[in-house]
């Protein structure tokens, strides 16, 4: 035998030993127990168990030993696993609950008896148990939550359903009332306020946009203004009865045009004097806080009484921040 042949033979033997020992080292032994069943057939459960074993084997390097034993807790599972010389034991149950099939899978560390993974998944079609097996195996292999393992081809019918949501009640609201300028407006004692809003009402809150107009009540007044608020508001409602107070607020855009009768002077040595309307107008941010009471809440048509304190963050006639108080009665359809 040549030196080369001896060397090659020794190399091949060494590699064979290395591969075989490496393979044993990277493939821990897990035990797969039978799944407990409730209201489904044992055969279906066995099929699921086989699918799960196959999928786990595809996802990670592990070899399985089987035991025809059903365990309902981790102590039982660990004992059975230890009997089989396995490092971990996979066990669980499949139960039918109405039209739903609920799959529970747990993996227990046989050395200390601790649960290392516990996953649950539900489907409405037994044909989707293969998807469940694939998803659970992926979750176990990648240490992810089952819900995070969804991908095309593995989404169950249940997961594709639209989530059931609580329903609110929405409709148009019309309001009319009075506005009292506090500061920053033309000197007008009282104004008219009109709102059109969309009011979406849930049991404890309401939200909605509104657009309105405010103007001075006296058409013959020398000073006058027109304000257009466009806001989005949100309110917390206290109570479910026919007398329900609420508080909240909102923000949006404001447009105000403001005209004031003023004395105009020119010159100082020779001075002219006349009366003129000084116009100013601006767009700006508007905010408001609201307190109110919702009446007849148990009816589809409701009424609310509200008081708003409004601030329009703009400069008109060199005055910043127009503030006003609005009192309104609103009908919600």
């Amino acid at each position, binding site marked *: 035998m040549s030196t080369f042949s001896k060397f090659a033979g020794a190399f091949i033997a060494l590699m064979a030993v290395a591969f075989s020992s490496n393979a044993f080292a990277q493939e821990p032994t897990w035990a797969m127990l039978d799944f407990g069943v409730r209201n489904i057939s044992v055969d279906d459960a066995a099929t699921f168990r086989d699918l799960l074993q196959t999928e786990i084997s595809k996802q990670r390097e592990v070899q399985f030993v089987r035991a025809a034993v059903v365990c309902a807790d981790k102590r039982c599972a660990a004992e059975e696993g230890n009997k089989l010389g396995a490092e971990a034991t996979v066990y669980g149950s499949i139960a039918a609950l109405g039209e739903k099939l609920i799959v529970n899978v747990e993996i227990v560390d046989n050395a200390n008896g601790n649960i290392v993974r516990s996953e649950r998944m539900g489907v409405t079609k037994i044909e989707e148990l293969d998807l469940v097996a694939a998803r659970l195996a992926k979750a176990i292999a990648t240490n992810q939550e089952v819900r995070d393992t969804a991908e095309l081809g593995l989404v169950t019918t249940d997961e594709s359903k639209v989530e059931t949501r609580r329903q609110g009640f929405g409709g148009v609201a019309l309001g009319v009332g009075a506005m009292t300028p506090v500061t920053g407006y033309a000197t007008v004692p009282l104004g008219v306020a009109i709102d059109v809003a969309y009011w979406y009402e849930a049991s404890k809150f309401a939200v909605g946009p509104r657009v309105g107009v405010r103007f001075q009540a006296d058409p013959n007044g020398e000073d006058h203004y027109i304000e257009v608020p466009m806001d989005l508001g949100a309110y917390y409602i206290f109570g479910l009865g026919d007398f329900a107070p609420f508080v909240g607020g909102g923000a949006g855009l404001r447009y105000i045009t403001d005209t004031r009768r*003023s004395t*105009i002077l*020119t*010159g*100082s*040595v*020779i*001075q*002219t*004097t*006349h*009366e*003129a*309307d*000084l*116009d100013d107008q601006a767009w700006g941010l508007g905010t408001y806080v609201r307190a109110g009471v919702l009446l007849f809440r148990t009816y589809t048509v409701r009424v609310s009484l509200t008081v708003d304190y409004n601030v329009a963050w703009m400069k008109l006639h060199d005055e910043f921040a127009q503030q006003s108080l609005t009192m309104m009665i609103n009908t919600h359809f």
Partner: protein
Amino acid sequence: MKRSTQLMAIVVAVFGGICAIGCTIDPDLDPFDDLYTPDQCTGTTPDLNGTWEITGTGKRSECRQDFLNTDKFTLSSVKIPLVYDADTGELSVGNLQVNSNFQVKSAVIDRACVEFTTVEGVGDQTIEYRWKGSAKSDNFLEGEFTGLGPSGCDTVGNFSMSR
């Protein structure tokens, strides 16, 4: 028609048009021209030396700032000390009670008729008035005025001046 002749025709037409427009716009440049008649100037020349006050009414138009336009304003003045040099015919302002950039630019006196221009600086603008009146007594004049400014306003009105 030759090209040069066509060009000449266009030039003549353009200048003719400009002239026509100018002739329709220009004639009111001096609204006092119609007021000043020799008959109004009969009487004795007033002694302008002394402290005068001006009052009146007027209207203002063509202002860039709309709130300055008005069909009626009232006019008043602080006490204005006038100094008149009969030899040179120069009219000037003495010490005013108020701190102001105010001056009399020019003055013409013809028997009872008095015409002068005042200019006041207000901020970065000026208000110029041209007063033209006749003396009704040694202490009282009345007439009409025009003005320019502030904000490009054109002003006309009536005034009286007394001391």
